[in-house]
């Protein structure tokens, strides 16, 4: 670790001079491997673009705001799926941000050591649970629970708003959002905890010396100082929620409709691809589905680039996410 600067990147010192034949060959192989890696990523973009070209050429930009998805009549509009994706992800990020940030503050600033380690460990394991297991649990435990308990309770209090009106099926936007929230809480917690822990001690000590309680210090000094990084953690988690496929597919209800009620079945960009791709018979149908994948690709690139810039600005780029 001698060449590591405190809190920053290890210094680059280029000592590699590749002159001997062995080294030239070595360098060539290294270059080739990296070039292949770059080609694969470019290939991903190009293949998605080529695959969606028939659909782009036929429907134009209207694809994005048309609300009819009826493959039999050759009508393809992405709006219901975009709506379902945005609503489920919003539910997820609101819940996950609240729980995740507070949990992170607790773990970084309040928890005694004997509690912080096992709690962090459990929350990080939550991130390792396979998506299909979340889906299975969501389908057989959470969805019935939403139908019999959470749904009626919400409806009895807030049933007068369109958001909580209508019949409760169990599967639908709300259940999808809840499952996603569970899946992204570890992301928010783990990164926010690192960011909060990276805030200098001096700030905390100064605040406490001025008479703040520990909690006031955490809320009014530490979190504001860490806000960019914490926000980045939330955006990164949002990116995961937007692209999550299998678990959502199992609990969303799979119906390409836009409905104001959170209890209504819906569809997301990823779940429509998962559900219909192998059954798509016409070329234009396949192409429309690939175009949904292209939209998903673009959204995830923008969201992730944003998130990483924000997290790096606070924590440094060293830890892989």
């Amino acid at each position: 670790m001698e060449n590591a600067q405190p809190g920053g990147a290890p210094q680059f010192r280029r000592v590699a001079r590749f002159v001997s034949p062995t080294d030239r060959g070595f360098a060539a192989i290294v270059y080739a491997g990296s070039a292949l890696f770059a080609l694969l990523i470019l290939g991903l973009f190009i293949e998605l673009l080529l695959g969606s070209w028939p659909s782009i050429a036929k429907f134009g930009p209207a694809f994005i705001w048309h609300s009819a998805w009826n493959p039999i009549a050759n009508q393809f509009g992405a709006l219901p799926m975009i709506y379902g994706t945005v609503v489920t992800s919003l539910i997820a990020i609101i819940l996950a941000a609240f729980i995740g940030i507070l949990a992170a503050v607790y773990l970084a600033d309040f928890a005694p050591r004997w509690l912080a380690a096992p709690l962090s460990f459990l929350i990080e394991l939550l991130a390792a649970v396979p998506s299909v297991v979340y889906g299975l649990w969501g389908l057989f435990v959470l969805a019935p629970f939403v139908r019999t308990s959470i749904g009626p309770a919400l409806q009895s209090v807030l049933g007068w708003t369109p958001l909580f009106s209508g019949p409760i099926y169990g599967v639908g936007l709300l259940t999808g959002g809840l499952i996603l929230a569970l899946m992204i809480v570890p992301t928010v917690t783990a990164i926010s905890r690192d960011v909060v822990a990276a805030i200098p001690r001096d700030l905390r000590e100064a605040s406490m010396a001025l008479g703040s309680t520990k909690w006031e210090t955490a809320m009014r000094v530490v979190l504001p100082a860490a806000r960019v990084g914490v926000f980045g953690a939330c955006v990164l988690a949002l990116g995961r929620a937007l692209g999550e496929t299998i678990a959502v597919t199992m609990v969303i209800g799979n119906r390409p409709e836009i409905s104001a009620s959170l209890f209504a079945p819906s569809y997301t960009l990823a779940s429509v691809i998962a559900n219909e791709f192998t059954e798509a018979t016409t070329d234009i149908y396949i192409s429309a589905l690939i175009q949904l994948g292209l939209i998903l690709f673009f959204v995830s690139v923008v969201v992730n680039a944003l998130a990483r810039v924000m997290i790096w600005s606070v924590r440094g780029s060293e830890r892989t996410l």
Partner: protein
Amino acid sequence: MASSVSAIAERDLPARYKGLGRRRFNSFLGTGLALFCALVAAASLLAILGYVVRQGVGAINWEFLTDVPHPIGVPGGGVGNGIVGSLIIIGIATLMALPVGLLTGIYLALFGRGVLPESLRFLSDVLSGVPSIAIGLFAYALLVAPFKHFSAFSASFAFMMLMLPLLVRTSEQAIRTVPQTVREGALALGMSNFRATIQIVLPTALPAIVTALLLAIARVTGETAPLLFTAFGSQFWETNPGNPMAELSLQVFTYAISPYPSWQAQAWGGALLLIVAVFVLSLGARLMLARAMRGLSE
């Protein structure tokens, strides 16, 4: 001490500084709320885990682990072909991802500055955020559509894409964390850069690289989405990577959304197997990481 200081403050300070008792009470509530949030997150893991174990244990027996799926109505059957399929698909993916990821990591570590490495790093980070279903579409377009034939190999290709970003960034960091003096020492003894990298730097960085590899394998073990239109699934013992193949997580998905209770019971059994596999891999990665840290601090 602290309480006597605050007692003075309470009496002597202007009115707007008073109310320390109330502030303390609010802080107590806030801390409680934060603790509650951390417990909720941890408890939800235990809830899911407990439920899967309770439902899954009953489904697991020798036949479940070694037999192929039976048709509807025929009792018994298992996910043996899916377990073998997972091993084959993930094995091939690992064999493809390791050299590409390692070489790119070496490149980034040795030639770290400049426009090209920086853009490669950016691309790698972008790739790590691309939804797995989009990567599945890529594998489909590249390896399934032209041959009009689903194949396990196309699934391995998709998994390789999912493993690469983690491998690239971690091996880069692992190699860069090896002290420059170690490399310089090897060069001073007359080693070529090639030998210094292969014989000195890589072995030192090995525990960290193995950690990354285990995490990457854990990640794809839990993946299902890209398999839907690459590996596709199969009812038979299939070991030829050129053909459609069963895969454990895909079987869990298919069984879970089926209307048959006997299949749903098997889905819980499969889910338990998946969780155990992923947790063992994650724990292994943690142990390796601890070893890597120890090795570097010595």
